[in-house]
């Protein structure tokens, strides 16, 4: 049954991809959705058996490739962490499959779309069930490919093409780090098997490692390299640029891949490697700071985006930052808990956004919406629930994880901890601001949409509404229901899946932080709501003066241009590389220098030399006589002075001299 969970989506993909034209637009969605649904059902059973009944499961399928000590296998590990991810992935995937049937119903390529979704699910499941680093990498790159194909689903759109390439390449930079991290792990542990590596991590805690001719703390280096992978996949600051652009893909894709599952792979990987990270205190600080900065950066940028989906994308980025810094302060359980909760409400937000976009004839710009609360009441209420869960409204799902994250950050009582607490708290303000701004602009504010599109407005049909309903249910209750199980005091749920250093437990500590500190996030969220209300609905004059002031404009442009990250990468990375690739390497060297000392030069020299020689064949007798005279003189002199010349003519000596010259210095 455990393997069926994985291979059902693959089966769905194979059927849809090879037989999509025979099953048609009715049959293909049915087949793929059914496969994923079954897989989801089994996941829940697996969750019960492994997570609740506490019996982890381990399946070794086949060897993959071996070479000396290097041994990669096709093996599957189902522990608590895996089954949590399984449930999240298959559940959201099933809902997105169902949703897509209706959302993409008018697309002639529906079978192709469903097959992509299924193959994505398969790769994601491979990623979370891997029992070794190499297989994790397989899933990791596989989801990257699926993401490329899905972003590029409407392949005639230039923007989609560009975004897809960007997603692939930026992720590739992360993969570069991950691959090096895996290789470094192997050269330290001589194994890539999770069980072996994690069991030995404590024994290697003191080892050092020469890298770039510097001596590093081995595990810190390894974790830093692994973290580069997480930065790429989970869109942390520095390699985040692909995520907002990835919104060019169809909305169900954004919900599944760029909100609920794939982007959380980085967090999952950190949690999975918690035994390694726990031995690498310096890297943990790096992880914490990066996560906090991402949360802050993305929240500020999300504030001024006008594209409905981009706001949610930045919100995802920001929430991923929360998860990462939760891991950075060693609270992996909290990080994973937030991951799960986030999957529910973020998928809900994206799918509701999709319903809005669908209803308004594919309009994504929030400035051209407004007032849709009257025509889309169901969608509005879903979006509202999602937003409240996101900003951590008390007793909704987000509250239980987000607040805990901030509290444990403060309870860390280190510079990094306090820093992240405050950044996180301020981000909470922005989160609440952009969530409400989104609601106001889209649903409540004055109507700005076209009459034509409003004429055909309809609320989500059943196939789209049903997933929304289930997700909303999750967004409200999951946090409350799962809190004690996943981050409760002394819970047995995680077993050996997550490891926390004995001196890193903060959950008790967090109960004793000042009361005011606990209220601050909620207070900030409320402030954010007030700002949003004031700036977007009520205080028109204040809003106007802010927007027209120089400071306001500069700030706006800076934030709207996403802190100019893309510009920087284009100018300082992409363009120089492309310049080098043509002007330096191709034009100057390959077609210049190498050609001159190579073929072109030889042709030139030989033909010119030939011309010179030809000129000597003048046909004039005195020319020949002169040359004969010279040669004869030279010959006689040569023979006469042979004793002297022979020294130079002895070929062995040349050979010996040349060899000695070349190698004397070295030996």
């Amino acid at each position, binding site marked *: 049954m455990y393997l069926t969970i994985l291979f059902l989506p693959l089966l769905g993909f194979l059927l849809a991809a090879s037989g999509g034209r025979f099953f048609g637009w009715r049959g293909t969605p049915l087949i793929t959705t059914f496969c994923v649904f079954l897989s989801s059902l089994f996941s829940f059973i697996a969750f019960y058996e492994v997570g609740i009944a506490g019996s982890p499961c381990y399946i070794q399928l*086949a*060897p*993959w*490739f*071996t*070479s*000396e000590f*290097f041994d990669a296998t096709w093996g599957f590990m189902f522990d608590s962490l895996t089954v949590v991810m399984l449930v999240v992935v298959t559940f959201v995937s099933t809902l997105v499959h169902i949703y897509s049937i209706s959302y993409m119903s008018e697309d002639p390529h529906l079978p192709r779309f469903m097959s992509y979704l299924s193959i994505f699910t398969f790769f994601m499941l491979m990623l979370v069930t891997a029992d070794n680093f*190499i297989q994790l*990498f*397989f899933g*990791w*790159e*596989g989801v990257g*490919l699926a993401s*490329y194909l899905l972003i*590029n689903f409407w*392949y*005639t759109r*230039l923007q989609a*093409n560009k975004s*897809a*390439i960007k997603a*692939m*390449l930026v992720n*590739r*930079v992360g*993969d*570069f780090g991950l*691959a*090096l991290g895996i*290789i*470094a792990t*192997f*050269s330290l542990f001589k194994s890539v098997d999770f069980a072996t590596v994690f069991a030995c991590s404590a024994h290697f805690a003191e080892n050092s*490692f*020469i*890298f*770039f*001719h510097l001596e590093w703390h081995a595990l810190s280096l390894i974790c830093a390299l692994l973290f580069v992978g997480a930065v790429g996949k989970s869109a942390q600051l520095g390699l985040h640029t692909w995520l907002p652009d990835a919104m060019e893909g169809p909305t169900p894709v954004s919900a599944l891949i760029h909100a609920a599952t794939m982007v959380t792979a980085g967090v999952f990987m950190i949690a999975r490697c918690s035994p390694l990270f726990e031995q690498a205190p310096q890297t943990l600080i790096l992880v914490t700071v990066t996560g906090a900065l991402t949360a802050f950066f993305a929240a500020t940028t999300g504030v001024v985006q006008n594209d409905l989906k981009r706001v949610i994308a930045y919100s995802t980025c920001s929430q991923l930052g929360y998860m990462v810094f939760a891991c950075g302060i060693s609270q992996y359980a909290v990080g994973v808990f937030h991951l799960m909760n986030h999957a529910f409400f973020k998928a809900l937000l994206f799918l509701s956004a999709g319903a809005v976009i669908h209803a308004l004839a594919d309009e994504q710009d929030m400035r051209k919406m407004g007032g849709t609360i009257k025509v889309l009441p169901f969608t509005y209420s879903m979006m509202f629930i999602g937003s409240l869960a996101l900003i951590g409204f008390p007793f909704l799902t987000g509250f239980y994880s987000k607040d805990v994250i901030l509290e444990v950050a403060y309870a860390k009582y280190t510079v990094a901890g306090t820093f992240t607490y405050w950044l996180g708290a301020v981000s909470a303000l922005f989160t609440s601001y952009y969530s409400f701004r989104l609601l106001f602009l889209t649903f409540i504010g004055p109507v700005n949409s076209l009459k034509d599109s409003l004429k055909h407005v309809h609320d989500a049909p059943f196939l789209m509404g049903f997933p929304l309903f289930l997700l909303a249910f999750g967004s409200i209750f999951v946090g409350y229901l799962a809190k004690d199980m996943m981050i409760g005091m002394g819970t047995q749920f995680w077993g050996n899946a997550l490891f926390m250093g004995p001196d890193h437990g903060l959950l008790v500590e967090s109960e004793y932080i000042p009361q005011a500190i606990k209220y601050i996030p909620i207070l900030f969220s409320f402030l954010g709501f007030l700002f949003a209300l004031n700036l977007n609905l009520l205080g028109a004059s204040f809003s106007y003066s802010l927007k027209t002031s120089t400071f306001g404009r500069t700030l706006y442009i800076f934030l709207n241009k996403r802190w100019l990250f893309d510009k920087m990468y284009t100018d300082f990375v992409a363009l120089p*590389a*492309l310049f*080098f*690739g*043509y002007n330096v*390497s*191709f034009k100057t*060297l*390959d077609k210049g220098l*190498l*050609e001159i000392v*190579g*073929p072109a030069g*030889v042709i030139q020299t030989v033909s010119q030399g030939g011309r010179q020689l030809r000129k000597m064949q003048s046909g004039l007798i005195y020319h020949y006589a002169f040359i004969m005279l010279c040669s004869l003189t030279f010959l006689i002199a040569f023979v006469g002075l042979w004793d002297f010349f022979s020294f130079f003519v002895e070929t062995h000596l040349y050979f010996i001299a040349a*060899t000695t010259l070349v*190698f004397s210095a*070295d*030996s």
Partner: protein
Amino acid sequence: MQSLLSIILLFPALGGLVLLCVPNSQTRLIRILGLTISFITFVLSLLLWVFFDHSTAKFQFVNAVDWLPFLNMHFYIGIDGISLFFILLTTFLVPFCLLVGWDSVQKNVKEYFIAFLFLESFMLAVFCMLDLLLFYVFFESVLLPMFLIIGVWGSRERKIRAAYQFFLYTLIGSLFMLLAILLIYFQTGTTDLQVLFVSEFSLQRQLLLWFAFFASFAVKVPMIPVHIWLPEAHVEAPTSGSVILAGVLLKLGTYGFVRYSIPLFPEASVYFTPLIYTLSIIGVIYASLTTLRQIDLKKIIAYSSVAHMGFVTLGLFSLNIQGIEGALFLMLSHGFVASALFLCIGVLYDRTHTRLVKYYGGLVHVMPLFSVFFLIFTMGNLSLPGTSSFVGEFLILVGVFQTNPFVATFAATGMILGGAYSIWLYNRVVFGNLKPFFIDTFMDVNRREFFIFLPFVFCVLWMGFYPEVFLEPMHTSVANLVQHGQWRG
């Protein structure tokens, strides 16, 4: 069973002689006969795999014929785990080369088939020869049919220049090797490889000999300063020529390294490792960046081959088991992936007779099946896990990282750059709006092309998901190679 290897070796050449007797006008008969011969060779070579003994590093299927007994030189052949798969790769690729030219080669059909069959025999001889001088002879003789293939069946006027360039570059390098072989012969009195494996050279002489061999092999690989013949030759060669060039001929250089340079001159190999590392890293990064800006489809794949071969040399000179096995595996994998990519380009070229990227776009609209194949091979090119290249590249990085993490890090940037040029190429050719230039000439792959691609897809995925079958026979031989070097050094 002992003579199986000799049969495989001679079969294509004899078949070529038989074809010689068929009248020129019988083109269909020539085609079918040629294909049958090459296919039978392939089936026979599969028997080699079946009867190959994994447990020993000895040379197997050994066969010796007196050639120049008074000079102590013999026609001496045999294979071990290192050369086995190159034999298979060669025999696998040749039938497809013939199939590719099925329709597009209309003039000199007989000569085309004969050239390929002889080329096959020569290449097989290089891979299984255990005599240094004869190795040299066949190493060079490969040039002759290849020169003809580029010069006669190439596509443009520039082909003559490309053919000369190809010939001269490789020949100049090999002259040094000939001198080195003579030196070895005069020192030891034999050119028998197995005797040479246990003879000793002084360090000074090793360095000299190693460098002479390097001059020859580096051109064939090709390594960076001497690589410019490759894009030129690829662009001018017909599709089948490119396939053989990328699939087998590039491997001759790296095969030479692993078969001759490393075991014969172990100390020199260690001594020159920094040189190889430097050239390889430059090769990977330089070639990848150059690839980004090429506008000719074939040049893109050609330059990316340079980058991949940079990985291979890197792995070979890591001088540990993972690195060398990875390198061997990547050579095989590149033989499939690059060949298949050239086949893809051939498919496009047959339809439009242009190879410039800018004329293509949105092919998925008109050639969906082709797009799928192209996607799989592109993923192979950027070494996505699950394709064959990943296994090779990853093992190489593992091997190199253990000897020099610095070098491994730089080499790993090739992952990013490889992704960049592969995915960009794919995106420009397959996605986007359909360009109107050749709109009426596009049609999806026909049955012949479909069945050409299918085995390649199968091999790329098989080697990606279950490469054990290929790695298993290598283990003993590679371990022996590494141990041998340590014992001697």
